């Protein structure tokens, strides 16, 4: 089973912090990969917040293809972060790891954000397509103020490989996943966290309803709902679909993935809407067992379980710094100086929502709405 470590903070933090938290949970993952997503970037990207950052990996040939493509589309390179990798046993280094900030093509600079988001997503998908067959290009995310890093190997060793301990990369929200390779071949696109247009999530547990959900999302006519090298990618897309595409307030994500029983819905003040949603989005019920940690574009971070709650999760911290982990030892590592009695172990009806800058923690209860 994968182990998850997320930290949301008022201050910029190093990606090493969630990685070290993962290390404390090492018994629970087999070290077959590390995925990191950084949001609200500090360090060398602090002044580049409005520029979209393309995160990925490419070969020498892939780099040329990528440069040509970006140039042709009118993107102008503003800044590039290239990790100074160092040899670490067991990790096979690829040619180029990068996070590049681009300026939008001229025609898009004054366009609404939604249009720019679509441009970025189409560009990322095009790059993925260009380099997917020969693995010459991996494009993980292309969005302002977000960086994604993924590699196969033990999380701590991968962090060492990238030199994250000495790099200037910092962020206010960092998601890290220590991968447990079970059903799928070790493939970077199968590695959490997954990201689409400002929405990100990572999950543990196996998604038993994967195929019907994938088929449903694929039929939405939205080009970004693709990939699905992992059964957990659908959680990110359901989040994006419910909040961005359908315009639901965030907590309805819980109602979508783990709908209530008819009698329970009747007691909600928004029963009519919830009943309609349950019917209309029936195919998106996840049926677990999963725990999902996610963030949305405004920097709100959340944790949610399916109704079976067979995958645990815990939230703990202090104002200005909260950790959302799959195990308590992870929270101990990330926020040791906290009042442990106030740790939250969300139950099956709960959704823990932490406001941007880690200011406030709210436990939303699905039964009460």
């Amino acid at each position, binding site marked *: 089973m994968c182990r998850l470590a997320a930290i949301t903070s008022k201050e910029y933090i190093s990606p090493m912090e969630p990685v070290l938290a993962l290390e404390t949970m090492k018994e629970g993952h087999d070290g077959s990969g590390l995925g990191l997503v950084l949001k609200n970037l500090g360090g060398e990207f602090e002044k580049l917040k409005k520029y979209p950052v393309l995160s990925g990996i490419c070969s020498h040939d892939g780099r040329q293809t990528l440069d040509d493509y970006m140039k042709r589309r009118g993107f102008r390179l503003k800044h590039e972060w290239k990790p100074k990798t160092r040899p670490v046993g067991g990790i096979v280094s690829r040619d180029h790891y990068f996070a590049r900030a681009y300026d939008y093509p001229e025609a898009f600079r004054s366009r609404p954000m939604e249009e720019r988001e679509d441009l970025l997503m189409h560009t990322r998908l095009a790059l993925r397509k260009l380099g997917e067959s020969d693995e010459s290009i991996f494009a993980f995310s292309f969005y302002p103020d977000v960086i994604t890093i993924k590699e196969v190997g033990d999380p701590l060793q991968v962090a060492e490989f990238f030199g994250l301990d000495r790099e200037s990369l910092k962020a206010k929200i960092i998601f890290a996943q220590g991968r447990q390779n*079970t059903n799928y071949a070790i493939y970077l696109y199968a590695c959490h966290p997954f990201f689409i247009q400002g929405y990100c999530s990572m999950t543990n*547990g196996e998604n038993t309803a994967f195929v019907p959900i994938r088929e449903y999302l694929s039929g939405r006519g939205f080009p970004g709902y693709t990939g699905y090298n992992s059964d957990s990618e659908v959680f990110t897309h359901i989040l994006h679909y419910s909040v961005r595409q359908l315009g639901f307030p965030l907590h309805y994500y819980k109602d979508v993935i783990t709908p209530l*029983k008819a009698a329970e819905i009747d007691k909600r003040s*928004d029963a009519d809407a919830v009943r309609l949603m349950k019917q209309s989005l029936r195919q998106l019920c996840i*049926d*677990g067992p999963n725990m999902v940690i996610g963030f949305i574009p405004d920097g709100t971070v959340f944790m949610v379980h399916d109704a079976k709650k067979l995958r645990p999760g815990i939230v703990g911290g202090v104002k200005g710094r909260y950790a959302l982990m799959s195990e308590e030892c992870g929270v101990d590592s990330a926020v040791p100086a906290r009042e442990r009695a106030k740790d939250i172990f969300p139950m099956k009806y709960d959704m823990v929502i932490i406001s941007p800058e880690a200011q406030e923690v709210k436990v939303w209860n699905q039964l009460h709405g």
Partner: protein
Amino acid sequence: MEPASRLDHNHRLSLREFPYIVRWRDDRCKRCGRCTAVCPVKAIEPTVKVMRVVRSEGPVPTPAASRQVSQMVEQVKDMERCCVGCGTCTLVCPNEAIEPELNPQHKLLHYKNKGGDGYKRGGRRNDPSESTLDKLKFTRISMLTDPALDAGRHEFRIRTLLGRVISPEQMPLKTVNGKLEVDKTSDVFIPPVREIYPIMIGSMSVGALSPPMWEGLAMGVAYLNEVEGMPVVMCSGEGGMPPRLLRSRYLKYFVIQIASGYFGWDEIVRAIPHMVEDPAAIEIKYGQGAKPGDGGLLMAQKVLKLIAKIRGVPQFVDLASPPTHQTKYSIEEAVAKMIQSMSMAWGFRVPVYPKISGTKTAKAVLNNLARNPYAAGLCIDGEDGGTGAAYNVSMDKMGHPIASNLRECYLDLVKQGKQNELPLIAAGGVGKRGNLAANAAALIMLGASAVAIGKYIMQTASDCFGDEYNRCNLCNVGKCPRGITTQDPKLYRRLDSDKVAERVVEVFKAADTELKKIFAPMGRSTELPIGMSDGLSVGDKAIAERLGISYAC
């Protein structure tokens, strides 16, 4: 020495031509006559024969032949009265002296066309081979990577939706103070949807079924809903419904069928203003899996007083529903109008869906319905469905198996992203070999929202004799020896409606447990695994390829 009579019997059939040969044991029979009295087809009759008997009495063998008159039970060698193997004779025999035996080399179909008419019967396709549904296995078992659930402990929600489901993009929702509300000012039509149990009782009419049979099913369904909390619905079949039921609060558990003969609809339409509940749905029958493209038929001998009243027809006349609705001109126009008319009759509060027989053209029908916002679903009835009366050739040779037909339609909806909008109901052969829950689960995983059962529930709830070896299958002539498909009070007295109801409840409760036993190891409990095709495998590559599931051996 033989008497001087003709020795060639070419004008007569030998028993070897008959589908069932009655084995009668002289030594056990006490000549009570029950078997010959009860035989629904008069295939056996008492007879008197003169026999040569050799006896020896005394201390040394002194055989002496004598002639003796003996009463016997003899099988009639007239194909019109051939033994149908129902075994009612065996049931009534106090001494186990008589039993019909299947004759696999029979030539029934060579001879069953007297008077130039083809062989008609009730029942189902005579094909005892393993169906595709029975070949499917559930192979995605949760093992260690995700924990399997406990069928006895976890909460399972085995429910489905009956009715057109609005697409998420069309939902008229607005956010007010961080909460979603249905926008009442919107003119978006929200179609009616029922939450039902995914196994329905399919359409079998009052008329085709005897009063205690239909009543037993209806009572069982009501009990399941009201006492067991299982929202099972049952379809009326074509032929109306008892007037009192139409005006009762139990109507909500019934799907009312309208078919091409419109039988019973006078009474139904008159009852609409007095209905205290809406029916669960309206089913428009365009076809039936057992006899595709053929109309309905209730033979004159079954049209007794009660049936005549409910259907609004004279007694003792053949009631033929035409193969097609007389108003049907095209699916674009007439079917849409029929769906709308039915919807309008109940103020658009009742889901209205068509039922067709399995066919290669099902996808075309489906695509039309997908574009019709009032179409509440599509029921596809596969070739293994049953019927009360049809030509043997229709049952045996016409029709499409349900598995690939259903799968093809579901995948077509997936392509359009409408798999949740238009529920598919699969029927025809569910539980053919008794595997009700497994067949239902397999169809659900292939894409069905619900399944409908007919002959399975008849067999299991009222001990119908019928099988795929043409056993009994007398539903068409009103002579049902179990009292299931007859209007003859002497026959239907044999059936106790309370017992039928009790069995219906038992069957559904058992199926519910078995469904949990299937879903739990697959890790599914909250929502029905519609379209979870990765859970299925089959040991036949051609089937695997056709259904888009994995091959396992």
